[in-house]
């Protein structure tokens, strides 16, 4: 009895102590649900792990932080790492800003620790390790495809030094990467509760990859431990962003529920999580549409941020008593109202102009809907097979009414098969304007083995990245740089709000050769060279001679025999004379020779005779 009591006391003590005190780490799981103005539903999962000792020693015992990832970060001296695997395109104009922006395909950027030697090698190893960890083709990232941006991708973590050495940054994208179940499973395995318990149990592959937009993100950075920021903790944020089109999901109504979105209900929170909360943005409730949420939220929060008010219905799963399965559903009342689209302050599109496969241009159109100037940095990442012409760069505002001069330019010309073209611009966008950044390029002709198996599908060009500081939070949902969880964005008013936009990726069809032709082409081209070689060889090694036309007409074998015979007789009779000299003498001599074929001679004599008689006549 006493033993039992002691045991329960011990268990209670351990659980009461909490993991955070013992191991210095904590785990938060959050889910934000938001009905977008276009009628889509945005679901953003965020799993945050904070680890106090992170980054101190290699081989540190991991508790909540995934061991595999921590080893990789240690081994390759990584300070900060951001990886996203995305399918679909985030439509800023209709959807506003996401919490974490990501381009279609895969994107990886990392800051290495100060003093890291051989960054390129570490970068290759890191991408290879991550490739194994997430079953993605990140191993195709090599230094030849990577860039070292000068203005964009500032470090997001907390560091001792105010400015960091830019050579420690590497950036690369794989726009062609397709994201699927095999990436989601290893992603879920990094979570403390896997997908057994907690919000991650809602991530079932079948439903996720049905979404219009789905993006997995891994973000690691050092973060301040407290407000004073004397110490840092290692922060790992694993995010899953999903945008569902309710019409595609089946029913014609605007109502959504866990069952409809994720296929399952929630069985409870992850026991290892410190907090487990679901936020539903109901700012639009009552204004544009009227809906009720069931069950009732634990609490309703008013978040006033940068002059814009947002209402969140918060469900604290830790506090909710879940008997069977937990599900949130919204039920709309009244007629469906289509809202006027009110696009965010800054958004951009990118496309290719021109026709044919010879010359083209890339246009990046950036909209500034603010009433004031807006400073942005634009980062263009063009692969080597689309050589761009820097001198054709034109930044025009409002359809050419004004030409902008960038505040700063940074251009690294590409090298064939070695380095992409990187162009960074710092531009001040005039108020209420559409700015067009135009640059010309040529279509390259590749070697036949450099084309992918489906050569006519085309080649992808990675997204351009626009970074800016927004003056207010219209359509803005991002987490402040000093916060780790979504809850820190509530009432988080700041002077400016950093935003990163990724534009569309481009698909370019390069001109193709005929893939079935290698042998023919090699043969034909060599034949042409031989056509030149033959006559030139003849011309330089042989002498022009008057030869007996009858001799020629006798055929190859006979002439060969004759030549052999003459050669033999010559060598026996006049050994001191060389053959060509003799031949020349022969041809020079005007008098008819004594040797030769008598029949042929007779023929010519006859001809001469007839000519002679004709002349006489």
């Amino acid at each position, binding site marked *: 009895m006493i033993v039992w009591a002691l045991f329960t006391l011990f268990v209670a003590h351990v659980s009461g102590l909490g993991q955070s005190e013992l191991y210095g780490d904590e785990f938060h799981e959050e889910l934000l649900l938001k009905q977008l103005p276009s009628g889509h539903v945005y679901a953003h999962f965020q799993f945050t792990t904070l680890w106090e000792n992170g980054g101190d020693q290699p081989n540190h015992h991991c508790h909540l932080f995934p061991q595999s990832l921590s080893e990789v970060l240690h081994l390759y001296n990584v300070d900060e790492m951001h990886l996203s695997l995305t399918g679909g395109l985030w439509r800023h104009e209709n959807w506003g800003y996401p919490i974490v922006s990501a381009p279609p395909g895969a994107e990886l950027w990392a800051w290495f620790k100060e003093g890291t030697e051989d960054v390129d090698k570490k970068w290759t190893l890191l991408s290879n390790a991550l490739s194994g960890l997430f079953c993605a083709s990140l191993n195709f990232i090599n230094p030849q495809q990577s860039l070292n941006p000068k203005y964009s991708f500032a470090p997001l973590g907390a560091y001792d030094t105010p400015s960091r050495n830019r050579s420690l940054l590497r950036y690369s994208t794989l726009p062609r990467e397709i994201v699927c179940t095999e990436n989601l499973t290893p992603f879920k395995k990094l979570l403390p509760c896997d997908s057994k318990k907690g919000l991650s149990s809602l991530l079932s592959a079948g439903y996720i990859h049905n979404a219009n937009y789905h993006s997995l993100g891994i973000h690691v950075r050092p973060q301040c431990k407290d407000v004073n920021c004397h110490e840092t903790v290692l922060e790992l944020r694993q995010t899953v962003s999903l945008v569902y089109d309710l019409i595609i999901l089946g029913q014609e109504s605007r109502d959504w529920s866990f069952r409809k979105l994720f296929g399952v209900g929630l069985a409870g929170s992850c026991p290892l999580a410190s907090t487990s909360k679901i936020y539903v943005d109901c700012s639009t409730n009552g204004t544009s549409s009227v809906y009720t949420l069931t069950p009732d939220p634990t609490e309703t929060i008013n978040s006033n941020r940068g002059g814009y008010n947002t209402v969140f219905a918060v469900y604290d799963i830790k506090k909710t008593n879940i008997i069977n399965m937990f599900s949130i559903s919204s039920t709309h009342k009244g007629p469906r109202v289509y809202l006027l689209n009110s696009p965010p302050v800054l958004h951009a599109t990118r496309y290719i102009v021109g026709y044919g*496969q010879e010359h083209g241009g890339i246009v990046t159109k950036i909209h500034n809907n603010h009433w004031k100037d807006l400073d942005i940095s634009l980062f263009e990442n063009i692969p080597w097979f689309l050589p761009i012409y820097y001198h054709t760069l034109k930044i025009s505002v409002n359809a050419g009414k004004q030409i902008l001069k960038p505040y700063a330019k940074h251009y690294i010309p590409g090298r064939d098969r070695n380095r992409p073209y990187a162009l960074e611009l710092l531009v001040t966008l005039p108020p209420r304007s559409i700015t067009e950044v135009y640059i010309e390029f040529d279509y390259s002709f590749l070697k036949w083995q450099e084309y992918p198996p489906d050569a006519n599908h085309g080649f992808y060009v990675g997204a351009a990245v626009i970074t800016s500081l927004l003056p207010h939070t219209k359509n803005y949902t991002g987490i402040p740089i000093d916060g780790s969880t979504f809850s820190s964005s509530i009432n988080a008013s700041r002077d400016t709000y950093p935003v990163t936009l990724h534009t569309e990726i481009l698909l370019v069809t390069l001109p193709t050769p005929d893939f079935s032709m290698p042998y023919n082409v090699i043969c034909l081209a060599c034949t*042409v060279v031989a056509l030149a070689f033959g006559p*030139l060889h003849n011309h330089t090694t042989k002498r022009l001679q008057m030869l*007996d036309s009858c001799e020629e007409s006798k055929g190859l074998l006979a002439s060969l025999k004759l030549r052999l015979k003459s050669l033999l007789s010559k060598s026996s009779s006049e050994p001191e004379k060389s053959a060509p000299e003799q031949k020349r003498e022969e041809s020079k001599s005007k008098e008819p020779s004594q040797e030769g074929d008598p029949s042929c001679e007779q023929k010519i004599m006859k001809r001469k005779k007839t000519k002679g008689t004709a002349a006489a006549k």
Partner: protein
Amino acid sequence: MGVPEAFRSLLIQYGFAFILRIWLYSSEFKATITERVEVSTPINSWKRVTEGVTLYNDGINPYSGDVFHVSPVGLILYSKLIEHVAAYLPVVFIIMDLFTGHLLYLTAVEYMKHLMCRQEEEKKEYSEEVKELMLNEKDVRKQPLYVVAAYLFNPYILFNTVAQTTTVFSNFCLASAFFCMAKGNRSGLCLFLSLATLQSLYPIVLIVPGAICIGYHTLPTNAKSESADHPDLFQKILPRALRSPNSAHWVKSIFATFGVFFTMLISLLFLSCHLSGGWEFLHSVYGFMLLVPDLRPNIGLFWYFFTEMFEHFRLLYLWAFQMNALVLYLLPLALRTRKDPVLLAATLTGITAMFKSYPSLGDVGFYLSLLPLWSHIFPYLQQGFVVLAAFIITSVLGPTVWHLWIYARSANANFYFGVSLAFAIAQIFLLTDVLLSYTKREFILRHGTSNLLNGKHGKLVLA
């Protein structure tokens, strides 16, 4: 009487050529011509020059990228041009072209004089019945004018000028080198040849005919006494066929020409290094020409061949093709046509224009316009019609199939490859035919027009 007439004729030609070019520059064809792959290659396109100059002015090393392939000396020249006379660039190009034409005229005049002299010297060896075949005053007067006309009104040269390619400047250097060659000016020849080599590498082969030509020009008149001073010093070293009483002079002269040329070339390279702040340009300019990384179609043989090449054979064929363009025919042709180095120079220009890695129509037009220097051998051409027809057909068909391939997407690369093959074959036929006709004329001058051999009908063949 002759001089003012020629002068008037020249003036008319220049005026007309100028107007024609100005008209083409201001017409809507300019953009089309400029973008043609046959005219603008990665080496010579003005768009890439502008790109390089912009990069240079913005403080970015143009040789760190893979767009710009002009030598640093050219870079400085073009950046000055763009900076100071940007508005008059077409006029600059047209005037360079007219200068080139005039230099070719002067070259032709000199060469005709030389041909006449040689004819006088060798007259006694000639057969008696060839009086009417010999060059006369009229030929001497007319042929230079033909050369100018063939240059200034050559459609290929017209396209080249209107597209503002850097080949205009290369051609100017080449024409100057030819003029110095005909004049026997060693330092001028070496200077212009090294400039041309600096720009496009392949003219380096012309130093061989250049050296031979300078050798002829500096040949001492009292040859016998000269050779007596150095008895048999070089006689032993040289092969028997090359031994002559002037061996000493020849060796000295050729060494001097090579020495001056390579000194100039190396100092130009060092100047380039100084101007661009490093040796990076070597890879960007000459590495690009030799390794052929850009497989954009042109009129040459390289692009499709190396597009379709198996990767492990690439280096082998790269060597084979570059040797074919540079050194394969150099020695045999130099030995064979050593008596007429200008012909040798023209032949080598033609061969490199055909077989170089990034040929353009400007190169082809240049050696085509040299051909009227030998218009006295035209009657002996056997394939004139075939070649002319092939030139016309390929010139029309090339842009057509290009459009079908790149824009209409209804044809494929093989079509354009076929046309470029046909164009190359036409050029090969022309060149070999010219060489054969030249030898044939020499033969006939010495042996008479009769085709009777030992009283029988003979046939002229290479055997």
